[in-house]
């Protein structure tokens, strides 16, 4: 540990360096060497057909999984695994403090109401209970859910559920927001609203947004678009 330094290895906020991910002892190669730099405040769309590796890339960028080979760097520091003597950011800490996730299926906890669901990422972060509630309430109000705070997920519409999930992803003020097909379970009206909301959040909060989608129209709303095929970036 004594020879480890904290000299940044990258000028990007988030960078993927030659990421490879395989399963079943290499029998399945989901990523075959992906390199990508994402600047702070960027809005990146990742597209590709099923099995192209776009979700796997998102998982590695968000610290949900570790690459078989290669490195993810956040503010120049490797995530999860130290590299070239540079100490790594703990992967749980990275997810808790710097990354926020939005899923296609919302993944709200059914035993908790909207306000409580949003507080979950803050549990155990050392924040005061009252602060947690105030922060969660403020976000839900910002997302137009002030009248739905005490509703449980099964009492909310799909669009409302996704808005609660977005509030949850923002509650710890992440630097990067990672969205995996965020409109995949929504009708066109709600899809448009959620996309508009995400764009507003990205602008208002200056959050870096990485969105996986198979819809090229949605990808067109992003600042930048990366297409994937067979585990590689192809544009």
């Amino acid at each position, binding site marked *: 540990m004594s020879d480890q330094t904290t000299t940044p290895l990258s000028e990007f906020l988030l960078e993927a360096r030659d990421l490879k991910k395989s399963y079943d002892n290499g029998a399945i190669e989901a990523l075959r060497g992906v390199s990508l730099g994402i600047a702070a405040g960027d809005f990146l769309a990742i597209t590709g057909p099923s099995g192209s590796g776009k979700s796997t890339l998102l*998982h590695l960028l968000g610290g949900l999984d570790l690459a078989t080979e290669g490195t993810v760097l956040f503010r120049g520091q490797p995530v999860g695994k130290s590299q070239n003597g540079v100490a790594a950011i703990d992967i749980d800490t990275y997810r808790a403090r710097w990354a926020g996730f939005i899923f296609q299926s919302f993944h709200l906890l059914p*035993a908790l109401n909207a*306000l409580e669901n949003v*507080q*979950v990422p803050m*549990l155990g972060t050392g924040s005061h*209970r*009252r602060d947690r509630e105030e922060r969660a309430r403020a976000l839900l109000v910002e997302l137009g859910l002030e009248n739905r*705070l005490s509703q449980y997920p099964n009492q909310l519409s799909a669009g409302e559920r996704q808005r609660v999930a977005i509030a949850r992803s923002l509650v710890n003020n992440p630097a990067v927001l990672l969205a995996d097909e965020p409109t995949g379970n929504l009708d066109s009206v709600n899809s448009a609203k959620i996309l508009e909301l995400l764009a507003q959040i990205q602008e208002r909060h200056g959050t870096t947004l990485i969105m996986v989608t198979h819809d090229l129209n949605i990808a067109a709303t992003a600042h930048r678009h990366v297409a994937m095929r067979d585990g590689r970036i192809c544009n």
Partner: protein
Amino acid sequence: MRLSFVGFAWRNVWRRRLRTALTLCGIGMGIGAFVALVGFSRSFEHAWLEMYENAGTDLAVVQKTFLNTSVDQSIAPVLQRIPQIAIAAPMIINMMAVTPEVNTLVYGWQANTFEFSALNILQGRRFRDGQQEVMLGELLAGSLNKKVGDTIDLQGGSFTVVGIFRSGSALEAGAIIMPLDQMQSLSGMSGKVTAFHIQLKPAPSGVSPDQWRQQAEDAVASALPGLRAVPAAERAANNQLVILAHAAAWGTSLIALLVAALGIANTMAMSVFERTKEIGVLRAMGWSRRRVMTLILIEAAALGVAGGVVGVALGWGALHILAMLPQTASIVSSTLPLRTLLDGLVMAILVGVAAGSIPAWRGAQLSPVEALRHE
């Protein structure tokens, strides 16, 4: 609507109300059995101690190693010569089936023993040595429907009931007391007694009661090799019947607790399996493995605490019923000692945490991606 870590855990436990309620019943039965059985055996021990204390017994002289002791009555003069000893009263204790339904403790005492000081004679008089006479505790007299002047058959001999007494000790209130010589004759212990109960002289100034008692114990050990003098509390705890009661209570309770633990383990394993995706969500939100494990352990401990409360209530109820039944009323107090109550709750929490540890560990090992893919 402020969410706390423990509140979140409890919410998870309470989601499956029926399963949780059934698990609580299982834990409750286990802890209830523990509280009732251990409470019973401790009540039993307490009753012995109370009996010694009420009579003013400081020490009991018994055989060094045998739990069911037999001591020569002829050592009485040796004991009386020990300077710390005021009175050495020989006694026998045994159990007897008075009727097919009623078992009772039977004491053999001398008519002039100091141990009568703890008894309040309600009817009749004290028995006389050498006579086929007995005295009955009021509980036993009531259950046998005997009064002064009636006779009672013991080991083929007919004994006259000459007195009915009340005692603060449940062990005496349901017992028979008869002349020592008659008891020796009935039980084939001619010239033998179970123990000598000792009353000490007051400690001289400058000597503490504990030092005085220790001197008496040393003097007995030195004057009578093979015998020892034990304080009343130790005698109560090491009584053969008490040891058997403790062993039976703990043995049975442990089996019941094991069943309760399996119930919690099953519930927690099911709960973790059903919530695999949710655990993945928590991990995706940045929850560490340790925090996920803590959450599941708290859920298991919460089940234990709630089951413990149910169990303590059930055990307390069972003790109340035992204290009312004629067969057990004489040795069971309906009071639940604080120690037993705390033991029950601590045991419940430990059982909960131990049973929840494997499901918690398995839950914590889930990779976020794998957990999120779980269907």
